[in-house]
């Protein structure tokens, strides 16, 4: 993996109002490949709205998104997926009544060859799902079980694995560990770091600064719909980030100028 200078995604001036409530007031955000980027801030800071505009779940009122240097329009989830932007939603967007392969391939089922294109190739989906779980070191002995029967960590892993399966370039996670225990949280972050090391750009929302400092490369703070500041993890401290979250103001970053992408690990 070579060092990547330009961000893969640049959001500029993203604005969104719900009725009279200004959820986003012209937010800029860059995402780099090979980096885990944490989005933090109080409730109603606009974090979820911002990632939803990138995921195609919400249409911004104004602002531009460029992907690999080209300006793109993301009007629904399919547009985002077509670009390689995959999203893992907070409420685990899995169909509980289906098994693991069905969930991994939800909406993108592998079908038989024409003229049987309406028929599912369940065998192929099962084999690929098994291979995927093995590659990501996710331990689910029986993939034919309904997802409902699985632990929160396993379910979150399936939701994340689904992104990888379709060659995601950018993965967005909305509080991926909010509902998980300590051990499961560790596993999910290991998976997130694994995806970063495989070259994906990761954007995640978290309320737990310990997790953020342990697992992320860059931290961006938002408050009431505006960007407060963006820091690389090694340039800042938890105290500074907490101050930014609470006060909504930032001292100039110690390393001057635009944030630079990290060198790739390994």
């Amino acid at each position, binding site marked *: 993996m070579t060092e990547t200078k330009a961000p893969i995604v640049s959001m500029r001036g993203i604005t969104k109002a719900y009725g009279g409530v200004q959820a986003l007031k012209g937010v800029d955000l860059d995402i780099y490949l090979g980096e885990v980027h944490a989005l933090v801030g109080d409730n109603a800071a606009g974090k979820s709205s911002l990632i939803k505009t990138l995921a195609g779940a919400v249409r911004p009122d104004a602002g531009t998104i460029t992907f690999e240097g080209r300006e793109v329009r993301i009007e629904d989830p399919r547009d985002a997926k077509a670009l390689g932007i995959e999203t893992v939603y907070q409420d685990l967007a899995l169909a509980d009544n289906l098994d693991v392969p069905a969930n991994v391939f939800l909406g*993108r*089922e592998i079908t038989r060859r024409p003229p049987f294109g309406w028929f599912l190739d369940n065998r192929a989906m099962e084999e690929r799902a098994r291979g995927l779980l093995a590659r990501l070191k996710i331990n689910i002995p029986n993939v034919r079980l309904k997802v409902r029967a699985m632990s929160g960590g396993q379910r979150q892993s399936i939701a994340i694995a689904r992104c990888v399966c379709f060659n995601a370039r950018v993965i967005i996670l909305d509080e991926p560990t909010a509902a998980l225990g300590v051990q499961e949280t560790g596993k999910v972050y290991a998976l997130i770091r694994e995806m970063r090391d495989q070259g994906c750009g990761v954007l995640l929302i978290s309320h737990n600064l310990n997790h953020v400092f342990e697992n992320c490369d860059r931290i961006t703070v938002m408050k009431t719909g505006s960007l407060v500041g963006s820091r690389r993890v090694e340039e800042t401290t938890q105290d500074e980030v907490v101050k930014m979250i609470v006060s909504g103001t930032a001292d100039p970053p110690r390393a001057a100028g635009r944030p630079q992408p990290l060198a790739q690990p390994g």
Partner: protein
Amino acid sequence: MRASAASPHGGLTAKVDHTLFVVVSRLVAIIAIVTVLAIASPHFLTWGNLVNVSRQASLQFLIASGLTIVVLTGGIDLAIGAILGLAACLSASLIVQGHVFWGIVSALASGLACGTVSGTLITYGRIPAFIATYGMLWIAHGLGYVFMEGEVIYGLPDAFRFIGAGFVGPVPVPVIVAVALLVALHVMLHRTVLGRAIYAIGGNPAAARLSGMPVRRRLIAVYALSGMLAGFAALVAIARVNAADSSLGEDLLLPAIAAVCLGGTSLFGGVGGIAGTAIGSLILALVVNGMNLLGVETFWQNGVMGAIILASVLADQLGGSRLIGKR
């Protein structure tokens, strides 16, 4: 759950864990009903009566099959009986004039059209399924009345009546038709893109939408299919009774819902299957037949049916609650 490892490949959607409880409990129920009726009535185990029950169950299944698919998506189609009635009138009027082919086409096409309108109102018009199909119920019903002007059509040609009243060897044709439809719909639900979408939409509509599934298109297809199956059931129904009038479909909706519930399909969507509805239809036919044989008054029959439906849903809640889960 252990059954999932043993089940043949591909049947991997919402059937295994929940179905184990449903299948066992329903088989026990069928055996119990048959045993009681065999002892209580000397007429029950006669060939003629069993043919009658199987035909009744088959027709019930045809009517409830489309509803099952709609219910699996978490929706409801209240219009199936009325669509059946309208389709029966249109097709019967053509068939008595000798246009058997066009009669069949008109039944299927009118059902398809009504279902497509319902589905479009529900998806693009954002009207709840309950309201949209309730409106469609009255529209189809009204069109049937207008078309028939109070007349009754009877005396259909024998060649056509074969699908409702004929036999292949000892087996009534409606039974063969119902079994063929059961297999076709089971394959559709578990082996096709549409079937996967039906379970996904019923299990988690938001997940289905966010996964990029064309949810609205799939739902319209489901309601269209439900309407078309009601039209198909109309053909078998008029072939069996050799007549059609505008009130034909009036009393068919609630037993169809009963057959779906008895079959263990959750009205919240995502859980159940078409095989359950076949079993539910059989139980319903057995119970009605038994009450008739035993001379239970009509007034009591409705109450008994209601109690059976509630008991079956309650049993699923208690016996299978861990498996059915909450949403």
